[in-house]
């Protein structure tokens, strides 16, 4: 029933204008029959005002409106209904007594009603359309421009369906009424990715992909309910702990929106075709033991992709097993640094497995000339650093078949 308010409220607005116009006409032209013309119109106006007020109260009770604004609109609306009756009654009395006192009283009441209609109408308009409907301010215009270049954030391969299946329904049920297409309280809406991330009036970033703890959205979800900034506000249904946890997890995973996959997935496929050795996060994770031993593992930014592994600062005792542990991923390693290491004969024999090496650092190792014969399988190697080793010019004869080898270094102090 409450929704009829939106229809009914327009009746009293139209009728008050009609009443005022007719009243003005009558005051100028006394020949017009006041009772016939105005009497019934006034009563229709009274009834429509009351109906609008009643449905208004019903609609207000369904919630989802700004409390302060709603209260003002409601009370002024009821006041208008009362004054409209007062006006009609004064008119009725005037028709019986025909004295100027009653006429003036009636006209004052009518003028008051007319004024009040504007106030109630404006409050109601603000309630449904928002503050900046009449005079959109510049900040919002600027924000609009910003959305024309959407930024893609988050690169993990997690399924994007989480948003569609779980997160979106939570937002829809709990947030969208006030932060959605119809209303944007605090200039924030959660159904639009850019604004949802950027945040609203508070100036704080609402969603920081990968960092739920610092995201304003999460802070507000976690606030105690009586607090002003807690969301949803205390009058509304609270989110369950499970729901909040899910939102936190989703943000920590990179807060992936559903439409992001459409934009970013083609890029991934192209790169996968282009790169010879595509490195996944799993590859890097598999090599976490190197990081623990003070070594470095990185995916190169080369066009062919591949891994860079630096074991220069891995202590010798931790280094012993590592070379063998690298074998499963040996094909993907393009850049290897084994400087400062003592290599056993068996370890030197492992070199042939690293077929795709482009850069190899062996400075300050115990390598000697004959060890270089173990490098012949490294057909793609371009750079070989043998500084501060026992390797001499004579050993380089072994490397002659390596067609791509451009630079060999034999610096010694």
């Amino acid at each position, binding site marked *: 029933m409450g929704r009829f308010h939106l229809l009914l409220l327009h009746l009293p607005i139209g009728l008050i204008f009609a009443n005022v116009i007719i009243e003005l006409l009558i005051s100028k032209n006394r020949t017009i029959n006041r009772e016939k013309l105005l009497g019934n119109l006034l009563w229709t106006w009274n009834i429509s005002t009351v109906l609008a007020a009643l449905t208004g109260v019903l609609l207000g009770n369904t919630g989802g409106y700004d409390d302060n604004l709603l209260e003002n609109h409601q009370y002024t609306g009821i006041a208008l209904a009362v004054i409209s009756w007062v006006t009609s009654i004064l008119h009725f009395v005037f028709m019986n007594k025909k004295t100027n006192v009653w006429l003036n009283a009636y006209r004052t009441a009518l003028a008051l009603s007319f004024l009040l209609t504007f106030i109630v109408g404006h409050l109601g308009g603000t309630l449904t359309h928002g503050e*900046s409907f009449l005079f959109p301010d510049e900040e*919002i215009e600027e924000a609009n421009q910003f959305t024309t270049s959407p*930024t893609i954030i988050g690169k993990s391969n997690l399924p994007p369906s989480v948003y569609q299946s779980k997160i979106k329904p939570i937002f829809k049920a709990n947030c969208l009424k006030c932060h959605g*297409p119809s209303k944007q309280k605090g200039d924030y809406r959660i159904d639009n990715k850019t604004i949802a991330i950027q945040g609203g009036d508070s100036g704080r970033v609402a969603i920081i992909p990968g960092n739920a703890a610092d995201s304003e959205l999460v802070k507000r979800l976690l606030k105690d309910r009586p607090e002003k900034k807690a969301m949803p506000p205390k009058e509304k249904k609270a989110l369950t702990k499970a729901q909040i946890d899910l939102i936190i997890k989703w943000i920590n995973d990179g807060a992936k929106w559903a439409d992001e996959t459409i934009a970013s997935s083609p890029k991934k496929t192209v790169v996968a075709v282009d790169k010879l050795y595509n490195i996944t996060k799993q590859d890097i994770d598999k090599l976490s033991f190197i990081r623990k031993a003070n070594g470095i593992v990185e995916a190169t930014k080369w*066009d062919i992709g591949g891994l860079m592994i630096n074991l*220069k*600062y891995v202590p010798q005792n931790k280094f012993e097993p590592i070379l063998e542990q690298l074998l499963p991923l040996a094909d993907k390693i393009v850049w290897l640094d084994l400087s400062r290491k003592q290599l056993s004969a068996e370890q030197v024999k492992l070199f042939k497995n690293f077929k795709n090496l482009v850069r190899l650092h062996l400075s300050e190792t115990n390598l000697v000339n004959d060890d270089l014969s173990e490098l012949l399988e490294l057909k793609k190697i371009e*750079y070989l650093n043998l500084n501060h080793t026992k390797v001499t010019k004579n050993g380089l004869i072994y490397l002659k078949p390596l067609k791509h080898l451009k630079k060999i270094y034999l610096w010694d102090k």
Partner: protein
Amino acid sequence: MRNFNKRDEISRRRFISNSAKACLGVSLLPCLQNNSLIAAVSESGKQPKARNVIHLYMAGGMSHIDTFDPKPGTEAQGPVETIKTNADGILIGEYLPLMSKHMDKVAIIRSLNSSQGAHAQGAYFMKTGYIKRGTITHPGMGSWLNKLSGRTNSSIPGNIRINGGNNAPGGAGFFEEKFGPLTIGNPSEGLANSKRNKNIPVKQFETRLNLSEWIDTSFHKEYKYKEVRAYSDAYTEALTLMKSEDLNAFDITKEPKEIKAAYGPSKLGQGCLLARRLIEHDVRYVEVNYGGWDTHNDNFNRIEVQCEALDTALSTLLLDLERRGMLDETLVVVSTEFGRSPEISSDLGRNHHPKVFSCLLAGGGVQGGQVYGASDEIGNEVAENSVSVNDFNATIGYALGLPLEEIVYSPSGRPFTVGNKGKPVTAIF
């Protein structure tokens, strides 16, 4: 507000593409959906290889016309002659005779331009990629590198500044203090106070450390904050450094006399030598500052003196890095806050000129012997391929393989990226 509500409306193109997918079970070619992909595919063979950076910063504003962007035959050139180099068609100023034999290792960017015409603001912009503001301090490139990629050698600091003050721009900014540079005032003196005082025996030293740790324990337990941890981190780092076998990296007296001499006696030369030693021990970022370029008067005599130091230091550095096999993986940057005006003042000086100036990049996968961009006939404005300070910083980030799109948030929740959304000059790799 009406526009506001349209924000989630899909574009006509997207609508058709989606309908095609839905109705016909097909998708448009991926390259049609994202133009940048075409560029990514066609630029093959680019291998930025930089691991570490030596940044030679010419404080005061190095005259581009008198050094790496000469304008022979114009009034702007003044009395400085030009010389040919070992890179075809590249001319440089006559006061850089040694560099003329190493230009095959260097890419000159002649179209740099800055929006900042004062020293402090210009240096801040060049070193951080952001314009100086009162509300926040931005981190320098060395701090970005250490934050995003981390140290190689964990026993010595990953970011070192030579010949510079602690408060110069390009520090840790809003990052944790440990990513900021360790400052070395005089390269010849190395790292001050890094050895245990001889009057204190090892045992007593350890006792004192344990005592201080014991006193701190309860406080640290109660206040588990980043700022509190930073203090104990500083102690731990200092102690690791004191024990590090790489501590001798800071000591240039260990270098042979010939090498010390080859770098030249200037603070820049000795700074470059120290930088090379540090990079050898895998410090990620070394900044060497060298002032005196603010030649408002007597430009031509002063430029000769300035250039002598730069010429000796830079040419030796490039050669030394190359023969040790380090130039491939070390990006050498020569930058400044702005150039100097083509007009020569009545004091025979040149004034600040941010509209166009030159910087150098070498090593780290950069193809030497080339010029990127150009200034007009008199070196007054950019003529082609403009490179902004953001682009320049992004190029350094690209050479290092840093994620240029990755958004890092300051503690106040503001988003920042390496090079502030500049476009890397990939053409020079």
